[in-house]
């Protein structure tokens, strides 16, 4: 029996944790509607489940104010097979119902808060953390488990205030050897997703037009980890390694770093707000780099 089970759980059984961006502030400004997008995604999920009968799919919605699990294929497989009221396959009736519920709740939360002029970013750090917790639970369940991977379907721009949390999740995923694939459907480039995929060894792709999203999803992101060694996947077109500063939560490519605690600031401060150490003068810092360069010149 054990051998049968281990044969079933060969290296191409996968657990796909899909992080679905449901940020209403993003979806109200795009050319593609959310329902069009959703139909691509549902077809993709069906395809993934059809590739192997042991494949598992978990969907986590990433909203503007909250994150929640909206679908877990391991829970619904044994459930009732009555077709949903929308005429959808039974498998996805519950997903749609929960998603609707989630979006309504998320919108209520948005209304509760006063509107400040901020970037309409969704809570990627929260859904990444939840996905990793779920994967950790799968790892705990024994040595026969599907190969987990995370796919972020993200459209909203990065929220620089989530920088530390997102990086923590990325490093944790790297330690667990869980690749984070990312498909960015927004207009700007996402430094978070590029770094996440680069560090964890996942695939990052930003399709230029969303009409053929289903093709992109099935040809790139449906491939399991074993198949990837044989497939020519899109190569990264550069990785954006910019960081966010701690003081104004801005994304910067050049900044000041505290020599004690490595906090990043966008301008010169007298005192480090994180560790409290007092800094010397900035002129000294500028002079030392020049003199160092001069000193190095005769050597080389």
């Amino acid at each position: 029996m054990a051998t049968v089970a281990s044969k079933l759980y060969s290296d191409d059984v996968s657990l796909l944790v899909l992080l679905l961006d449901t940020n209403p502030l993003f979806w109200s400004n795009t050319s593609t509607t959310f329902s069009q997008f959703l139909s691509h995604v549902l077809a993709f999920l069906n395809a993934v489940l059809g590739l192997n009968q042991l494949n598992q799919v978990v969907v986590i919605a990433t909203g503007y104010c909250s994150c929640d699990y909206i679908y877990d294929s391991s829970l619904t497989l044994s459930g009732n097979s009555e077709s949903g009221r929308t005429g959808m396959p039974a498998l996805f009736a519950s997903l749609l119902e929960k998603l609707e519920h989630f979006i309504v709740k998320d919108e209520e939360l948005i209304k509760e808060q006063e509107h400040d002029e901020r970037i309409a970013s969704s809570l990627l750090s929260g859904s990444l953390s939840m996905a990793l917790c779920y994967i950790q639970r799968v790892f705990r369940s024994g040595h026969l488990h599907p190969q987990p991977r995370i796919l972020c379907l993200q459209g909203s721009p990065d929220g620089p205030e989530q920088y530390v949390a997102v990086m923590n999740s990325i490093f944790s995923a790297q330690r667990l050897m869980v690749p984070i694939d990312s498909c960015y459907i927004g207009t700007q480039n996402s430094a978070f997703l590029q770094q996440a995929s680069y560090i964890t060894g996942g695939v990052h792709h930003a399709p230029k037009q969303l009409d053929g999203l289903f093709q992109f999803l099935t040809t790139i992101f449906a491939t399991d980890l074993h198949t990837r060694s044989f497939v020519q996947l899109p190569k990264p077109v550069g990785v954006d390694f910019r960081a966010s500063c701690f003081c104004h939560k801005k994304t910067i490519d050049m900044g000041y770093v505290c020599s004690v605690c490595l906090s990043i600031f966008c301008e010169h401060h007298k005192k480090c707000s994180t560790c409290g150490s007092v800094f010397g003068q900035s002129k000294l810092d500028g002079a030392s780099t020049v003199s160092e360069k001069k000193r190095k010149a005769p050597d080389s």
Partner: protein
Amino acid sequence: MAIMAKHVEAFIREFFDQNPLSQIGLVSIKNGIAHTLTDLGGSPESHIQALMGKLEAAGDSSLQNALELVHEHLNQIPSYGHREVLILYSALSTSDPGDIMETIQKCKKSRLRCSVIGLSAEMFICKHLCQETGGLYSVAVDEVHLKDLLLEHAPPPPAIAEFAISNLIKMGFPQRAAEGSMAICSCHKEVKIGAGYTCPRCKARVCELPTECTICGLTLVSSPHLARSYHHLFPIAPFDEVPTLASSNDPRRKVGKSCFGCQQSLLGAGNKPGPCVTCRKCKHYFCLDCDIYIHESLHNCPGCESTHRPKSVSLMEE
């Protein structure tokens, strides 16, 4: 010799893993003189390559020459950096051109911390050197012991607060160029295809991070290197344990039937509430396994991360 090189390689990798911003320089001691194998630099690959290329032992060894050379190298480091020397010494004697005691005093004055791992027998001069400069002296008895001793030196020594002058260092976070793009790199002055980084200030191309831009002198680091240590700066508060008896009367408890992190049911045997913990800030419930994972590896509370914080609050927290 091969064994030593193997362990030094492991040491270099471990060292850079633990001290991503530090630099290493390699010096070989043979035939009575000290040679610089590699200048101070931050890329593990180039050090390991140089180390593997120059593997031979010959002649006398001179501790003084080595110290003088190292002193010269380390003296240019700014005051906020730690200056450390780790010597793997296998000879039983040292033949020096001058007075080694003077050199030791010189090292002490410029705050070089010298540690020695002896590969044969204990020597007075090594012990003296370590005592004077505040380093560690140890003699390896066998291969495993050598490895342990080496790796002991990888974590940074406790900071010497009075010497360390904190400073803000200007740094650049270069972008990685597209795979397959062609450019001439400024560090090797060769045409390279593919992966390279572009200095944000002068747009020069460099091959590896962390480094110093050869054109404008800006320190270039990759931001993930820095971010690796951030969980020390913003630790998450320990979760509170939920008392199992009182919780059954708690109306909020009905909401938290499953772990917020992994959706595992929190109900124990016989539908009685099992052990669980809760975050003080976001009041979400977690199972014990997630608690361990969150605090030891993830360093994020999934509950707090999935609630939208108003800007004013997040600024006050820091």
